[in-house]
């Protein structure tokens, strides 16, 4: 396909007085892995539901794979895969029965495609297990298999890794990359910052608004107002209290066992240490930090 896979144009959805999605516009190109980052209830799921024609937009429109998302839903759904937050699998059916069922619903009855899908998500050997007894990680992979059984060109994943352990999450993302390499466009929502780093482009959403959509590197250089520093000290709480607004320090936050501080670009380590000392704090170490999406996200959150 030549043009963009998804084009959202001022897409809006209101529930009564509440604006769940507020005039968002963006485009996704074929083969991209686009992440959608934001807290629960910020409108990520509502966006996906509109793109799949499950909800009617209150305003604006979306074109998915060349079809109007709300008026040509059948065309969109036949070509798109969807994996919802609650893994939509039948606990009282086996792995194979679940896949055969969803395959049949898509009109796929050949055994080969079912086997192929089983292999793709790594469930070979577990065909005859009841899904109710599977771990969250296995269930997640089956849910992905269900979304993939009809070879969609576009895959919507709505918080696919919630409640899944880190190892399973990593395996899952490897699978996503494999799919992207085969040309599948992936649109994935998450509230894990580290996962968003895996995406080619990341959209940051809050309270229904799409605040930014760019590559992780561009987001960090454009959105962050300065350099990131890690300050190790025993006086964490005092630091949180005293440092903000001191000297040229722009932002102070807690990050695990140390403080994370943003200072204007070009500020030297020496100068920063001086500022810290002037607050009466004893820093054991001051190091230049690697900016993360979390820093980006937090800098939005504090606006």
């Amino acid at each position: 396909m030549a043009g963009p896979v998804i084009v959202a144009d001022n897409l809006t959805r209101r529930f009564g007085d509440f604006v769940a999605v507020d005039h968002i516009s963006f485009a996704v190109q074929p083969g991209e892995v686009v992440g959608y980052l934001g807290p629960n209830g910020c409108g990520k799921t509502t966006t996906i539901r509109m793109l799949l024609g499950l909800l009617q937009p209150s305003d604006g429109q979306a074109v998915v794979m060349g079809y109007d998302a709300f008026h040509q839903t059948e065309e969109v759904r036949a070509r798109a895969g969807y994996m919802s937050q609650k893994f939509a699998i039948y606990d009282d059916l086996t792995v194979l029965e679940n896949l055969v069922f969803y395959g049949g619903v898509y009109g796929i009855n050949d055994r080969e495609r079912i086997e192929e899908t089983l292999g793709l998500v790594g469930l070979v050997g577990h065909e005859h297990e009841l899904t109710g007894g599977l771990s969250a990680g296995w269930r997640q992979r089956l849910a992905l298999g269900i979304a993939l059984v009809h070879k969609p060109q576009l895959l919507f994943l709505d918080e696919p890794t919630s409640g899944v352990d880190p190892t399973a999450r990593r395996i899952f993302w490897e699978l996503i990359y494999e799919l992207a390499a085969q040309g599948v466009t992936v649109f994935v929502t998450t509230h894990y910052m580290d996962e968003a780093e895996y995406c080619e482009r990341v959209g940051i959403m809050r309270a229904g608004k799409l605040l930014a959509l760019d590559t992780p590197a561009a987001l960090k250089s454009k959105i962050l107002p300065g350099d990131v520093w890690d300050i190790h000290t025993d006086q964490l709480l005092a630091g949180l209290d005293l440092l903000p607004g001191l000297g040229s320090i722009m932002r102070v936050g807690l990050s695990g066992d140390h403080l994370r501080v943003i200072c204007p670009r070009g500020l030297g380590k020496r100068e920063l240490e001086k500022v810290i000392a002037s607050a009466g704090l004893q820093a054991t170490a001051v190091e230049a930090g690697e900016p993360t999406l979390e820093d980006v996200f937090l800098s939005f959150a504090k606006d």
Partner: protein
Amino acid sequence: MNSRLFSIIRKEFIQILRDPRTLMMILFIPVMQLFLLGYAATTDVKNVPLAVWDQSRSPESRKLLDAFRAADYFRIAYDVGSEDDIRELIESSDARAGLIIPPDYSQRLLDGDAQVAMVLDGSDSTVGATALSTARLIGQSHAAKLMQEQAARLGRSAGVEPPLEVRTQVWYNPDLVSAYFMIPGVIGMILFAITSILTATTIVRERERGTIEQLIVTPIRSWELVVGKLMPYVILSLFDTLVVLALGNLCFGVPVRGNLGLIITLSGLLLLSGLGIGLFASTIANTQQEAMLTTWMTLLPAIFLSGFLFPLEAMPAVLRWVSYLIPLRYYLVIIRSLMLKGVGAAALKSEIIPLAVFGIGIMTAAALRFRKRLD
């Protein structure tokens, strides 16, 4: 065959077979209901325990007691010596009725003005009413027999026949066995209860688990989803109908005089109402429990106001009007007539039409609501 529809039907069957509760409901409960209502819920009164205070102790009084014994309704359980004994036995429910024969019974019989007293326990109105009319009948026929004997003794052999005799003839159920009334009702109840409850819960379960959302994003159409999910329950409840018909016939001797094809067809008409109510309930309820409760609310009036247990003729006018809104009401008339009278469809027009109207109406309303909730 349509692959989407077939997939849904197959999946639904697998789920039914794996769920012990649903299986119970489909396979075990109908048979249990059949036997419970066929045997226990019988209103045929028999062997009512009777306490007798015979003060006469004469050949005449023994003849009267023989007359009571001969009728199946009473069992002379106690021979007592005072009215207080009778009161005690009735209070403790050991006896349901008491018969008091005065000391001068044989003498007054000759004089032509003998009286005996019958005391009945009215706390169970069914037993009381039956015992009352039976006791009267026994008394009357015994009196008639005595008159004939007297006339014979006096040499007037003929001419004392009573001037009027009502010759009764009971059609379709000559022995008035209540199982004949109950078992067709069980069929109606099963069809209605299974389809409405199971339809509502099976659809709400998909919504609870989030699978319905997954199904909606597939190319499946609303009607395929609805028909595919309902079809297994249609097949299973028609299977239940045949099982109950067969068991009712084998174990209780309830005849199946009507055309079997017509019975199945018209049962399908009732299913339309049951499925419609279940589907409608599923669009209101958010959890399986809510779905259960909602369908129960329609089941209760169906049990009490359809004529399933209590005759419609005995209801106050207001409740009788309400009963016209209950689809089971029409079906019960249909199935009882088909099984016992063996009539054809033409005789049941005034039941078939409202049943069809109700079924199509509720199904259309439910389907429209269901479609809306998908969007």
